[in-house]
């Protein structure tokens, strides 16, 4: 077997072992609960601002792009609202939010755990008899799995608002047509689909970044490198799973 494949399987094996330790029964549930609340604030609530800003512009840009690319009397203008809604629901709000968060929280998690590793804080936890993998990583995963769907829903609503704002401000669609369009031929299953994707992406981002941070070694340089790897790898895995989940859930 060639070296890159050996390395890939070695990483997959170590990742699986780490996840086994992460989901071991907690020493004290109250402490884990407290950590989870902290992580929801840190990873979720602190990301609401960036998600809101990005979503409003995505919504506006989709409206304007769709309007200019479908300029024809054959297309009713309410289709703009429908297009914005479905693009946000099916793809942009879950995947783009996940990619942005893999940059923001992925690097954050990897550098936090990496620094804890090189400054022996993780060793200190182990010596105390604490399952460091579980105590440090499980609350992050739980927080992301629960909170990413919420951020996605928020992104959809703000994106729809952004689409309305962009469309009405540039005059490509009337307010009435846009609102009619976002209600037209609505398929509720798309919401389920996007929430499933968001939860899985939350798991991928936090677990892959935690893996990179937890196994960091050396000094600041290595922590930085692992943090970059965490972002790149979690983004790629999110894109691969986006394809797989689309195949599984929509066909």
């Amino acid at each position, binding site marked *: 077997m060639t070296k890159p494949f050996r390395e890939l399987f070695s990483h997959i094996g170590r990742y699986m072992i780490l996840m086994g330790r992460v989901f071991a029964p907690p*020493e004290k549930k109250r*402490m884990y609960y407290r950590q989870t609340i902290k992580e929801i604030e840190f990873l979720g609530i602190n990301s609401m601002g960036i998600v809101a800003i990005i979503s409003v512009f995505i919504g506006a840009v989709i409206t304007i792009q769709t309007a200019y690319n479908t300029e024809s009397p054959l297309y009713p203008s309410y289709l703009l609202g429908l297009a914005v809604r479905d693009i946000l629901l099916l793809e942009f709000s879950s995947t783009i939010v996940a990619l942005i968060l893999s940059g923001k929280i992925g690097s954050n998690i990897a550098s936090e755990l990496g620094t804890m590793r090189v*400054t022996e*804080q993780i060793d*200190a936890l182990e*010596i*105390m*008899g604490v*399952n460091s993998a579980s105590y440090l990583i499980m609350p992050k995963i739980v927080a992301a799995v629960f909170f990413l769907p919420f951020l996605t829903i928020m992104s959809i609503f703000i994106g729809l608002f952004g689409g309305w704002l962009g469309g009405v401000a540039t005059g490509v669609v009337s307010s009435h047509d846009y609102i009619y369009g976002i209600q037209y031929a609505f398929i509720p299953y798309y919401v389920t689909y996007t929430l499933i994707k968001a939860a899985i992406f939350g798991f991928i981002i936090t677990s892959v970044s935690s893996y990179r941070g937890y196994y960091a070694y050396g000094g600041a340089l290595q922590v930085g490198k692992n943090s970059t790897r965490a972002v790149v790898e979690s983004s790629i895995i999110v894109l691969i799973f986006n394809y797989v989940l689309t195949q599984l859930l929509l066909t």
Partner: protein
Amino acid sequence: MIKIEHLYKEFQHAEVLKDISVEFQEKKTNMIIGQSGSGKTVLLKCIIGLLDIDQGRILYDDIVFNQLNFKKKKEIRKNIGMVFQGGALFDSETVEQNVKFPLDMFTNMTEDEKHRRVNECLERVNIHNVNSLYPAEISGGMQKRVAIARAIALNPKYLFFDEPISGLDPKTAIRIDRLIGELTKDIETTTIINTHDMNSVMEIGDKVIFLYNGEKWWEGSREEILHSDNPELNDFVFATNLAKTVRDLRKSGHT
């Protein structure tokens, strides 16, 4: 009682520890000394189970620690307090939260009881009025003392220190040394310290183990060090001009 039998450890085919057998003195201060790269930290990490060993046995009260599974090791580790070289305090937690952490995790004390215990431990290491500060807001010496307070919070049976006075000024270093000596007596722990500082050894070392190129080269008491004719040990102990002068003066009858 902690005992090591024929311990071997290698990294990528390079032997770092070779056939180490030691019995540490119970409820005393045991010092592992040696030059940088002699294997002191690796030995300490093997004893506490942060590194797996290749051969040999590590016994805690006749229980073979290195053959235990993760869950059983955790039980023994609850009796261990460890102070790392850099303190290893949790950056995102205050001094009080750091010391309280083991109490939160392993006891069913009420918040009041925990608060009292935290203050007791902080007072024991002579630290006052820093409960709400973060580790980055206190000095290196204070960080070490907070780390000691955290290590003794659960009254451990075994205390480990990795280079406890590195990076500290001589006066603070002596204070930390004396504190470790007092704690060993007061809470009756078996203390194992990794150091290359001879002042520490002469101040508090009850038993001394000298490592040389990954082997146990010498062991004895701090008094015996001064009279040893082991050339490698003498090279290490009397490396400075000051130490050499003191030795020569003692030899020539001066006190």
